């Protein structure tokens, strides 16, 4: 260690003031400010949140941008690769409208078909614009995300709170029900429901409603069991607060962290489920598009027109990665154990 010369004037006697010693130096933070401060530290999560925002916006306006409808078939324009007017001359970008044949020859599909149009993400085998369809598909995925979150927060939280708070017989019966529900493979319930109803967005919604909330209910119940013995609940009871008021005003705010973390981890699962069902043909039916059906369609022609699978595959991966990153960020922000 290097020695530094210390002069006397570097030091200054501290003023001893008993009245001031109890003062809190920094402004106090609310629960949300505190969480937001910690969430902001995680750059990847913030970026992901911004991307989710952009994707949501694009999924709403994207289908109207290219001027082609999602079910509009132009058969002369079938299987055209992506081509974007400003970027087509940059050789390393895949937007030049060129395709590779099986023997390695490269040709321009637009020149070969003698059409002078621009399809930003190309077209599928029926000549439908993939740009419109991919954003339509993203719309479905985001709808599923919203739906899963709602189901978790409404049914899961209510079920868990009632079960945990009232305890006794109520809890016993409700727990037996969740135990059975959790032992049935999700997949089986979903597939059976979809078999009974018609495949489509409605049956996926119903299937998710049946299975989606069980995990949240368990987590919330465990948390309520811990919280309901706290002094502030006893105090509220003593002051004559009704059960409803205790649950909504006193317990719910203390559950916020757990609820948010759990919801965020349900969302990627739900998105995956919808894409998965659509991929095996039990989800949305043509001409509707979801990322799962687009990947399925693209997969069939993967050898000839790889872009038809790659674009929706990249899109769903991007959505999943962003939701996972945000979920990680929120867990770190809300979980008191992770506080640094």
């Amino acid at each position, binding site marked *: 260690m290097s020695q530094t010369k210390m002069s006397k004037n570097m030091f200054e006697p501290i003023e001893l003031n008993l009245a001031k010693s109890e003062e809190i130096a920094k402004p106090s933070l609310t629960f949300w400010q505190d969480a937001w401060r910690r969430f902001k530290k995680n750059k990847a999560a913030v970026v992901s949140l911004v991307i989710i925002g952009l994707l949501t916006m694009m999924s709403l306006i994207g289908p109207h941008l290219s001027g082609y409808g999602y079910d509009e078939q132009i058969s002369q324009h079938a299987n055209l690769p992506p081509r974007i007017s400003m970027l087509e001359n940059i050789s390393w970008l895949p937007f030049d409208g060129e395709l590779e044949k099986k023997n390695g020859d490269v040709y321009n599909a637009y020149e070969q078909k003698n059409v002078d149009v621009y399809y930003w993400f190309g077209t599928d085998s029926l000549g439908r614009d993939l740009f419109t369809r991919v954003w339509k598909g993203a719309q479905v995925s985001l709808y599923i995300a919203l739906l899963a979150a709602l189901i978790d927060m409404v049914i899961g939280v209510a079920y868990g709170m009632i079960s945990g708070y009232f305890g006794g017989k109520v809890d016993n019966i409700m727990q037996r029900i969740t135990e059975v529900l959790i*032992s049935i493979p*999700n*997949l089986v319930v979903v597939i059976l429901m979809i078999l009974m109803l018609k495949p489509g967005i409605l049956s996926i919604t119903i299937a998710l409603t049946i299975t989606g909330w069980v995990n949240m209910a368990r987590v919330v119940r465990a948390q309520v069991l811990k919280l309901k013995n706290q002094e502030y609940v006893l105090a509220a009871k003593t002051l004559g607060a009704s059960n409803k008021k205790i649950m909504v005003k006193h317990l719910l705010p203390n559950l916020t962290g757990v609820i948010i973390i759990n919801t965020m981890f349900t969302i990627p699962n739900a998105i995956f489920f919808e894409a998965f069902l659509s991929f095996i043909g039990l989800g949305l039916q043509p001409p509707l598009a979801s990322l799962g059906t687009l990947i399925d369609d693209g997969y069939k022609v993967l050898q000839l027109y790889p872009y038809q699978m790659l674009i929706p*595959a990249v899109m769903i991966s991007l959505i*999943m990665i962003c939701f*996972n990153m945000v979920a990680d960020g929120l867990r770190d922000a809300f979980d008191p154990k992770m506080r640094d």
Partner: protein
Amino acid sequence: MVKYIGKRIVYMMITLFLIVTFTFFLMKLIPGTPFTNASKLSETQLAIMKEKYGLNEPVPIQYMNYLLNILKGDLGVSFQFNNVEVTNILMDSLGPSMVLGFQAIVVGTVFGVVLGVISSLRRNTWVDYSATFVAVIGKSIPSFVFAGLLQYFVGLKLGWFPVAFWKGPEYSVLPTIALAMFPLATASRFVRTEMIEVLESDYITLAKAKGASWFEISFKHALRNALIPVATILGPLTVNLMTGSLVVEQIFGIPGIGEQFVKSIMVNDYPVIMGTTILYSVFFVVVILIVDLLYVIIDPRIRLAGGRV
């Protein structure tokens, strides 16, 4: 312990009974006919067919018959293949699925644990960040997308492994990788968190003070304790694998349970759908039970009464 296991098995039975009942009545509600060429059949022929498969009895009697047959291990006869017993179909397709699932869970957890240990020991370095990146990718990309991409790039473009079918060990490489990504990602994240927590505990400091080698500390002291909670995620991971195998088997043309399930859904083959559902459910509850018991055995601090965490 015996009482606990007994209680769990009783619950298991109730669950399975409910699942069987539920599937049976759902199957009765599904529109559509199981006979592929029904439109060509005359009234009498249809009646004969229904008679043959016992479909003309009242539903409660069909249900009782079905329950009794299940107890005998008889799941009925498939509609799509003439007179083949469902039990035989399931037995034939069980092999590839088991091999694939087992390989995927082993490969996934082993590599996941290694990755997790490495990133916890090199915390906040580029090694850690790239491991995190791999984990996020593995967790986010759906298995069927991953399977399709592997098939195209590694199988077709590079030609390293066969793209489809099930004729030997080399055929299982790509599907195993596709399925193993999710367990790998989950296990590596989990092990990393656990390891970091364990590495900060007092007995690690003590081991360091005693002059134990780096290898001994990380593997003998830290990893062993960090692995205990990993056992809990094995159950959910196996279940997740079952979902994944459904499509991965289809993509790679593997004659497994998943492929059979999807195929029978497409052609309304009720007995096979029900058989597969029951098989899946049995497998599922057994896995959960085993994992719970395992957890109790390796970590004596867990109170039995608490049940599943």
